């Protein structure tokens, strides 16, 4: 490429051939220029017009590829570099892998009209316009460019005019503002190896770090959704890994140290008990990985709903740390006549409950166990009970693809309740083979 051609090239576009981490890629490109733009998961744009005095065109491409190719290889993503006059030009060249824009199909107009793929309003109009043009026999950009501008506007309106102007570079495109994501991190080093695996000093240091972090989040009106804690150790033959990493994803975004520290403490105490630390601690690092919008300003004087909700979810998260995921939950109803499938666990209820059209269900449900019912007597686990009353039968029928002999999933059941002489009321079903099973109790 000659220098005169290069003078017209102001933007470099790196197009990823499959969705990739464009934010990280953009950070790497900051060494070339502070003016970066990102098309989420697909492309990164770098303004190169102002760095001609630093790099010649060949040098720029070489350094760019040397810097990024190993990283792209590591994340197994292929990419194509395109240099153009502006954003749209470089995008079309990188996306379609050609310097000859006129030879591209009309589908390239999407990149010119909406280069950042973030305008849902324009897309349907573009689609209609391109379909109409293809029906009229206009398939290439070169043919589109030959259509007089006044005819474009009268038939296809502002979208066609915008596409034409972008193709002719007659309308500048505002460069969207991008800055690398802020990382909120606190790290403390222990240079004198004071701590030898006790938990309390770790928690003491963590509290100081969390106080700083939540203060910074509060100023930015954010809350912590995900955090990572790393504890660094001196390595030796018994402690091979230099650090232990703990990831925390909070049920409810945390805004205060107290809740977050309680959750972290549960995980660390379990880990330190299961895998005692035998080497001195070298440092602790806490990083906020994900945040959500928080509430700014003073606390509400009239109620403490927010604080109570946060304390509640911090408690539930602590209990989950102790007892495992899914041990603490809310229940959401599902429209299914099978009692065991009529609800599901959830962290919070989002949907309105469905209308239930079946008889009263028992308060407790068990794994179905075989029982015998004969001559007004009910036999279970070697014991016999007299039946006082039997309710009417509720029949549920299954889907054609289900195996009626499969107890877990079968749908073909006749449900009824039995009142026994000792006062208990049990929930029984009979399957298609005529076998009875105890599934619940009205307790």
């Amino acid at each position, binding site marked *: 490429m000659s220098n005169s051609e290069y003078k017209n090239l102001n933007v470099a576009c790196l197009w990823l051939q499959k969705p990739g981490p464009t934010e990280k890629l953009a950070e790497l490109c900051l060494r070339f220029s502070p003016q970066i733009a990102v098309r989420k998961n697909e492309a990164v744009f770098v303004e190169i017009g102002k760095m001609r005095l630093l790099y010649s065109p060949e040098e720029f491409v070489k350094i760019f590829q040397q810097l990024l190719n190993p990283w792209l290889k590591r994340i197994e993503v292929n990419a194509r570099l395109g240099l153009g006059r502006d954003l749209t030009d470089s995008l079309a060249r990188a996306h379609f892998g050609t310097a000859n824009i006129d030879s591209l199909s009309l589908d390239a107009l999407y990149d010119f009209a909406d280069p950042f793929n973030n305008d849902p309003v324009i897309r349907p109009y573009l689609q209609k316009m391109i379909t109409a043009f293809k029906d009229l026999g206009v398939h290439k950009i070169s043919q589109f460019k030959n259509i007089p501008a006044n005819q474009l506007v009268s038939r296809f309106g502002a979208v066609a005019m915008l596409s034409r102007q972008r193709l002719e570079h007659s309308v500048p495109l505002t460069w969207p503002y991008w800055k690398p994501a802020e990382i909120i991190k606190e790290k403390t080093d222990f240079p004198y190896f004071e701590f030898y695996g006790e938990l309390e000093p770790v928690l003491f240091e963590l509290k100081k770090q969390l106080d700083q972090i939540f203060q910074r989040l509060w100023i930015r009106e954010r809350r912590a959704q995900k955090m990572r804690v790393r504890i660094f150790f001196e390595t030796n033959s018994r402690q091979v890994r230099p650090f232990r990493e703990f990831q925390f994803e909070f049920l409810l975004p945390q805004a205060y140290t107290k809740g977050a520290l309680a959750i972290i403490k549960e995980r660390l105490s379990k880990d330190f008990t299961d895998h005692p630390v035998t080497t001195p601690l070298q440092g602790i690092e806490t990083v906020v990985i994900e945040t959500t919008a928080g509430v700014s300003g003073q606390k509400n004087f009239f109620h403490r709903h927010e604080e109570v909700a946060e304390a509640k979810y911090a408690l539930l998260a602590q209990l989950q740390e*102790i007892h495992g995921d899914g041990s603490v939950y*809310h*229940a959401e109803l599902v429209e299914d006549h099978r009692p065991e499938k009529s609800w599901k666990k959830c962290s919070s209820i989002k949907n309105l*409950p469905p209308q239930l059209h079946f008889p009263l*269900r028992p*308060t407790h*449900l068990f794994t179905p166990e075989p029982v015998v019912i004969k001559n007004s007597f009910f036999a279970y686990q070697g014991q016999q009970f007299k039946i006082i009353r039997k309710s009417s039968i509720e029949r549920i029928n299954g889907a054609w693809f289900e195996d009626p002999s499969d107890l877990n999933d079968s749908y073909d059941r006749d449900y009824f309740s039995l009142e026994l002489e000792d*006062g*208990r009321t049990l929930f029984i079903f009979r399957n298609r083979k005529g076998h009875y099973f105890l599934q619940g109790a009205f*307790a």
Partner: protein
Amino acid sequence: MASAEQIRHLKLVINAMDVTQPRESWQAPGLQDGVPKGAIIELQGPSRFEWFITFLKENPSLNCFWAEKSQSVLPTALHQRGIDLNRITFAVFKEKEFPSLRKVIQSQIFPVVISTHHFNEIKMLQSFQLLTEKSNSSFFMAAEKPVTQNWPVALQLDISGKLNHFNIEILKQRYRKTNE
């Protein structure tokens, strides 16, 4: 022997006296004095859970923490009996139920906590009693087996009968409804 006689006589006298103390309470089905706040209540009998669900229905503002050793309660049944499932947080504690329930009661987030675990150690019951008093919440113990050392338990009920027609026998009652 004489002292044993005296103790027996004193127990009879005490039982005859009204030694219940006034305490704030929530209304409860079939109980004139309601369920005391800040106390342990033990539920026995074949209809104890139906009664408890009716109690929750009569107090719609109360959030409840429902802890079990293994998952057996059917949330659909609670909904059918008029309980908003948003109010109930369910938990399955296979082990370490005592420290976990202590945390729950201590947090003061749930005014009603029910557990189907069996606690018989007096220190555990004392601990629950102190925590419920401090947090002003009610802790319901609804295990299959009743506790033997029951002095920290403020109210002991044996419940039978059907939905909305409960037969309640008060085995022990320490508090009555306050007049205020």
